[in-house]
């Protein structure tokens, strides 16, 4: 049954991908990409990767699509011409694809529990991490502790992206005169937004602190919290949103999150452990692990929230200025 669903979803993905290749209407292309992201999130659920599905839905279908739409509003929605050079790309792609197919032919079969992937390193994560780390969610254990260095790098990547977008587009200036903007006539939207924005923020907090036990964690929580403010900005206008959450504050928060994460690692130095060794943070190693993971997940959450929101602000401010002109 699961295989059947998988096959169906893969088929839908293939159709969507073809749509992206052939369509010229960029608005449709971007929407198809959102659908593509959602479908792959479904595949991830079907393949037991709930955390990944959560992130893909929030990031691919959420943030990425919003950013692409924001770009389209500035650049126009029609691809003017294509196929100016189809032969060489086609050749490259067919060669690459053939190489990959060749590579798959003696791969370990799909889903077989005897595969090397399941036999070596992963065994310890599955068997021992609930005792060593004390958390039921193995993904969080591996992410935050065994491979915490990767996650530190990931936080740095988000920070780097925020720096990049800020240097390219700049942050919006706070402008008290323009506060009366947004979707003035949409009363229903305003009322519903007022109801659900607090709920979204509550949910973000739940995801942040429940990530140790279920799917979720700092990254997803940060994206969801940013989405709440983005919704606010969409309905009530960017100037009002920048009054509520100020761009300068966001810049500082993004930096603080990285510092909190790295600082937790450095704290282990002084307590006699290696970098990011949470065992030494408390008297009991498992308690130390728990404390460490909460701290670094908080760092990730803060940085991701601030970075995503300032990236959105940067794009939105360009769009607003264009509308005024």
């Amino acid at each position, binding site marked *: 049954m699961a295989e059947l669903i998988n096959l169906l979803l893969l088929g839908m993905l293939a159709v969507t991908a073809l749509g992206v290749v052939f369509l010229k209407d960029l608005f449709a292309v971007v929407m198809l990409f959102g659908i593509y992201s959602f479908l792959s999130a479904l595949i991830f659920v079907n393949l037991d990767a709930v955390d990944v599905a959560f992130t893909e839905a929030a990031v691919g279908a959420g943030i990425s699509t919003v950013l692409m739409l924001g770009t389209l509003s500035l650049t126009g929605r029609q691809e003017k011409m294509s196929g100016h050079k189809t032969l060489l790309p086609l050749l490259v792609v067919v060669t690459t694809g053939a*190489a*990959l197919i*060749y*590579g*798959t*032919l*003696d*791969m*370990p079969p799909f889903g077989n529990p005897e*595969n*090397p*992937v*399941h*036999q*070596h*390193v*992963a065994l*310890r*994560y599955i068997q021992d991490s609930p005792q060593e780390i004390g958390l039921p969610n193995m993904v969080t254990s591996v992410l935050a*502790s*065994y*491979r*915490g*260095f*990767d996650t*530190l*790098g*990931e936080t*740095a*990547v988000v*920070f*780097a*992206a925020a*720096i*990049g977008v*800020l*240097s*390219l587009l700049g942050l919006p200036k706070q402008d008290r005169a323009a506060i009366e903007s947004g979707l003035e006539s949409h009363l229903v939207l305003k009322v519903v937004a007022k109801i659900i924005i607090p709920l979204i923020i509550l949910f973000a907090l739940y995801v942040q602190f429940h990530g140790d036990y279920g799917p979720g964690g700092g990254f997803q929580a940060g994206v969801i919290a940013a989405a709440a403010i983005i919704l606010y900005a969409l309905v009530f206008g960017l100037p009002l949103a920048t009054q509520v959450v100020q761009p300068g504050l966001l*810049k*500082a928060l*993004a*930096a*603080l999150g*990285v*510092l909190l994460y*790295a*600082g937790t*690692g*450095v704290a282990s*130095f002084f307590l006699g*452990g*290696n*970098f*990011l*060794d*949470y*065992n030494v943070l408390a008297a009991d190693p498992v308690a130390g692990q728990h404390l460490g993971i909460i701290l670094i997940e908080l760092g990730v959450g803060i940085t991701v929230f601030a970075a995503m929101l300032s990236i959105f602000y940067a794009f939105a401010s360009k769009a607003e200025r264009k509308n005024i002109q």
Partner: protein
Amino acid sequence: MFEQHFLILPIVLPLMAAPLCILLGQRQLAWLLATLVSALSCVISVNLLYAALDQGVLSYAVGGWAAPWGIEVRMDAASAMVLSLVTAISTLVLIYAKASIEKEIDSSRHTLFYTAHLLCLTGLSGILSTGDAFNLFVFLEISSLATYTLVSLASDRRSLTAAFRYLVMGTIGATFILIGVGMLYMQTGTLNMLDLADRIAQSGPSRTLNTGLAFILVGVSVKLALFPLHMWLPPAYTHSPSAVSAFLASTATKVAVYVMVRFIFTIYGVEYVFHNMGMDLILLLLAIVAIFKCSFMAMAQSNVKTVLAYSSVAQIGYMILGISLASAAGLMAGLLHVFNHALMKGALFMAVGAVLYRTGSVDIKAFRGLGKKMPLTMAAFVIGGMSIVGVPLTAGFVSKWYLVTAALEQQHWLIAFLILLGSLLAVIYIFRVIEAAYLKKPDESAASKDIKEAPMLMLIPMWVLALGNIYFGLDTTLSVAAAESAAQWLTQSSMSVGGGQ
């Protein structure tokens, strides 16, 4: 008390300094912090280099989790050598940047420049230190994202398209590496480099591993601008701010060469890559084509930065040529050229940046008569240029010498001849600039009369690198010892793993 943590500090220090720069918010302070942190990392790296030469290999378990379950930071002579180089160049470039970016980057973005520079340094140090294949990908992306930002900071609008092209090609390269690492993981169940090497040796060749290697090599070739995947490099180096060109030209591609060496020699082993898959011939051919095609391209350019950019692609050809000889001598020559080329390109790009600072142009016409007006800058340019050509008593001569020796050791007379011929081409494109500076008359317009020597803060780092070219051309003990020990360590470990079959 921090000695046992030295391995991780070159990554953590710039990583923590980058957000601090943003929090400081003031560009003078940000510059000071960035330079100090970079210098401190450099001191630590040189320390590590001596420790690595002494003890062979240093290892550090991040999070206290032993490899392969946790991520290991590993340092041997090869990584410590490139790391010392990268941190040293970063420090010099930061000193140089203070004056240089005044004219090239809008002052409101200076803090962002220092932050992005530190993030790029973090990424490069991470790539050089990590012992985990996936962790390498993460750090590669940190450095790449920071690089795209750095390139696009220039006020010239062409820097935007250059950065975009770099972003698209760089991301394709990184995704190829991701696919390759996935295939490795699929076949072995581990991500730690040493563990991977063991398990690949045990399992022997398979299609999945072959494909994985092919994808990794293509991905890394994009990052190191191996011909014909170099198209992003000339525009990126030409249009980015001078300080960025100097930093990228002397570090980013060098680190990519290191990644290639790591995958070929440590993970797969010489036996697998060169004997089973015949990659040496492909790399050799590409390297030779790169040397000649791009040297000719360099001759045809009128923008001096573009000349240097094409020359970089050609010089990368020499490094890959050394690797493709598949011997300890060849690898050593390749690594030595990595080191020496960083010195010469750093000095050259800094000299060109100084010219841009004073004259506002990097066209070859702007160089006319500068031999008299900016004597110190042009002298540094001449030293760097001679080093590129491979004139005796410069660092470039040393690495070309070892390269030719390595080729002759295997009776490859034709290759040795081609290396010498390539140097001849370098004479032509370098001499065009020198001719303009010393032999052509300056145009006597009013604006060009007040051209003065570049400011001190730019001259000092430029001359440190220029003198470095001469020092490492005369006294080769440190550079050759490091490269030799690195090459021995890499080929030995690779042979012993290969022998375990």
